[in-house]
């Protein structure tokens, strides 16, 4: 399978639905694809599905989930996977992703991306579950490095190596969230460059960018503001290592007009262009 370059995308958010459909030659014309939060469309019908179907007619879509709970010791949620697969049959996404994390225990959901201890036990556990999920969905998934706020004393494997090992052994792909690397590097005091160096280039199929909130003693991954310069710089470093990778900007709070996000996406194009020109 060759790595195709899908271009530059945005997270599909309800405040932008009408602008995307009503003004196709406007800001939306500068968006190559949209990423949906899968759970927002796992409803029986109505507005979300109405808009998704129409936007899908014009744009490639990728599906990004938050509920797979790939690292949980709970059994995989078969109802969720069935719903996800049904949505994928409707949307025909370019690819599907979720996070390297766990979200619940004994059937009680935290609705948060909780951190895993990076141990040999966790590693084998996640590898087996990724294989099971991929068998069920009939496709490879992308696993994203999460932002996390606390580490475990037992974590003996650096996160990037942990993720690389899963990707290799389970034969899945990686959604590299460059902002999350920055956030977690600060929170866990690791070196972001060393992190990038541990990621196998051929496994990286998508990049996420986002803004965060710096509380001084820690950084929270809030997706409520623009991408900061050090993250742009880390993005350029990533592209120099991995080559062209489809890139999108996530914005989940204080969502600005589509035109503003498209301008930020154009900045991603500029940074990518410069980084790849230097790499060449």
């Amino acid at each position, binding site marked *: 399978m060759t790595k195709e370059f899908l271009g530059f995308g945005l997270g599909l958010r309800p405040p932008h639905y009408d602008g995307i459909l009503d003004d196709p030659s406007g800001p939306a014309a500068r968006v190559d694809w949209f990423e949906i939060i899968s*759970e*927002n469309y*796992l*409803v*029986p*019908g*109505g*507005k*979300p*599905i*109405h808009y998704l179907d129409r936007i899908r007619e014009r744009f490639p879509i990728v599906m990004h989930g938050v*509920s797979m*709970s790939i690292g*949980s*010791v709970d059994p995989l*949620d078969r*109802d*969720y996977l069935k719903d996800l697969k049904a949505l994928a049959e409707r949307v025909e996404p370019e690819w599907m992703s979720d996070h390297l994390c*766990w*979200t*619940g*225990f*004994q*059937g*009680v*959901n*935290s*609705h*948060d991306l*909780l951190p*895993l*201890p990076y*141990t*040999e*036990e*966790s590693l084998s*556990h996640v590898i087996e579950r990724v294989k099971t999920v991929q068998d069920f969905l009939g496709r490879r998934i992308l696993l994203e490095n999460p932002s996390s*706020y*606390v*580490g*475990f*004393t*037992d*974590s*003996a494997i650096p996160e990037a190596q942990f993720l690389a090992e899963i990707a290799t052994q389970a034969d899945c792909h990686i959604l590299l969230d460059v902002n999350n690397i920055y956030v977690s590097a600060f*929170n*866990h*005091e690791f070196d972001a460059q060393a992190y990038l160096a541990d990621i196998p280039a051929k496994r990286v199929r998508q990049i996420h960018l986002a803004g965060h909130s710096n509380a*001084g*003693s*820690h950084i*929270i991954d809030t997706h409520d503001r623009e991408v900061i310069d050090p993250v742009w710089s880390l993005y350029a470093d990533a592209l120099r290592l991995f080559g062209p990778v489809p890139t999108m900007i996530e914005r989940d709070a204080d969502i600005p007009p589509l035109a503003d996000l498209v301008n930020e996406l154009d900045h991603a194009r500029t940074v990518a262009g410069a980084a790849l020109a230097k790499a060449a």
Partner: protein
Amino acid sequence: MATPLTDAQARFHDYVINDGPAPLDITRSTSNATAEKLLGIYHTGYRLSLLEALEDDYQALRALLGDEVFETLGREYIAQTPSKHYSIRWYGRGMAAYLSDVAPWQNHPELAQLAAWEWALGEAADAADEDTVGVDTFGQIPPEDWAGLVFRFHPSLRRLDLTWSVPPFRQAVQDEDDDIPALEQQDEPVAWAIWRQETQVYFRSLADGEEGVLEAALGGATFGALCEALTENLGDDAAAVAGFLRSWVEHGWITAIKT
């Protein structure tokens, strides 16, 4: 030896969800922050994300209670209500029942009615899509088939009986009106219907006699049985039922008419 993953998750989860002891011995402090503080991000985040979901579902209830009391209610509900569904979309489902069952909220029945109304509006908004029949369908039905007709209703249709003036209150909150009408108790319960056409959610009160006919039709009664029931109750005839039916079709409530 490393803590087994099950134990690590059980303790982390117990702390975040149930307010159990912080798992300080298995987590790390950094040079900038203690493990206790860092763990607190998850503890706080859990409650805030669920509160935000409740705010989305119950904006009129929040307007009625005020931010502070709504947050008290929300935190109580969260403490009592583990989230069993993978999607946060359904987390607030039990709010009306909670308000009916638990003091001091149960002493204010308008709260549970308002919550039930808001939840029903949300359910109607993303209920399944189904094509509806047009009024021209009636012309194609042979007269001899009418008595045996049964009706299939749109999945978004919801029925509620309210003794408080919930719908205009909620609408004014949603429209961000300058003058929000007071929530008032009615002399008699009013029967309401909520439904969706395309992407728009509508509601209206039911006419005299319509409520019983609708309930029977939703239960699978034939047109003939609906007419008989109405005649018994109101001394009316088939024309009244046909009138209700026409309005249901015009509102997009009916998705199939079967003989």
